[in-house]
C-alpha cells in the first residue's frame, strides 16, 4: 500500500508509470484532468486554482484510504495543481495499480469523482470579459 499525494505548482505527467508500476500489478489506470478552451461555449483564457492545502491533503488521504479498502490495489497517486493554468496544461493526476485491470479502472474513476466532490480546491475561470469561481452543483 503505497500512497503518493501532493498539491503542486506543476503536474509532472512523465512520472506516472514509475510512480504506479509494481511487480504484483498487471496494469495501471490513470486520469489526467486538463484545462479546456471552452465552458458552455464560452472561450476560456486561463484557469486559477486555489487550495485549502492542509485540509485538501487530509481529504485526499481519506479518499485514497477508501480506495484501498474497496479494491485490491498496489499503489495510488493523487496530485493536484494550484495557481494559474493555461489551456492544455494538466491540473490533476490520479491513478492506481492493481493485479487485474477491473480494479484499477474502478479505483481511478472513484478517485477523480470523489476528489471533485470533497477536496477543498477552487477553480476560477477567466473569460474574455469576466472571471468566475466555478460552482459545479448549482
Amino acid at each position, binding site marked *: 500500500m503505497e500512497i503518493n499525494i501532493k498539491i503542486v505548482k506543476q503536474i509532472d505527467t512523465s512520472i506516472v508509470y514509475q510512480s504506479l508500476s509494481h511487480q504484483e500489478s498487471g496494469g495501471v489506470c490513470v486520469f489526467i*484532468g486538463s484545462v479546456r478552451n471552452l465552458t458552455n461555449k464560452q472561450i476560456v483564457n486561463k484557469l486559477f*486554482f*486555489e*487550495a*485549502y492545502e*492542509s*485540509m*485538501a491533503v*487530509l481529504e485526499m488521504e481519506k479518499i485514497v484510504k477508501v480506495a484501498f479498502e474497496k479494491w485490491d490495489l498496489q499503489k495510488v497517486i493523487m496530485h*493536484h495543481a494550484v495557481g494559474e493554468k493555461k489551456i492544455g496544461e494538466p*491540473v*490533476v493526476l490520479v491513478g492506481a495499480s492493481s493485479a487485474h485491470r477491473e480494479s484499477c479502472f474502478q479505483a481511478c474513476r472513484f478517485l*477523480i469523482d470523489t*476528489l*471533485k*466532490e*470533497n*477536496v*477543498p*480546491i*477552487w*477553480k*476560477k475561470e477567466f473569460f474574455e470579459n469576466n472571471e468566475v*469561481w*466555478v*460552482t*459545479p*452543483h*448549482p
Partner: protein
Amino acid sequence: MRILLFGIVKDIVGVDKLDIKLDIPKNVGDLKKYLVKKYPELGNLSSLAIALNNEYATEEMKLTIQDEIAIIPPVSGG
C-alpha cells in the same frame, strides 16, 4: 476567532481571513447564521460548509478560539 476564507467567499467578504471579536458563535450552525446575516450574498451559494481543524464539520459542533476554522464554498477542483 479567526476564520479562513477561500474562493468566492474570499471575494464576497473581501478579505482572506475574518476575525470575529464580539458575539462569538458557539457552534457551526451559529457561525453560518452569523455569516449569512452579515454577508447576505453567501446565502446565494449552492452550499456553504464549515471546516473545523481541517475536517468537514456538522451544524452542532462547538467552536473554540483554538480551532482552525474555515469556510468552504462549493468545491471545484479537478
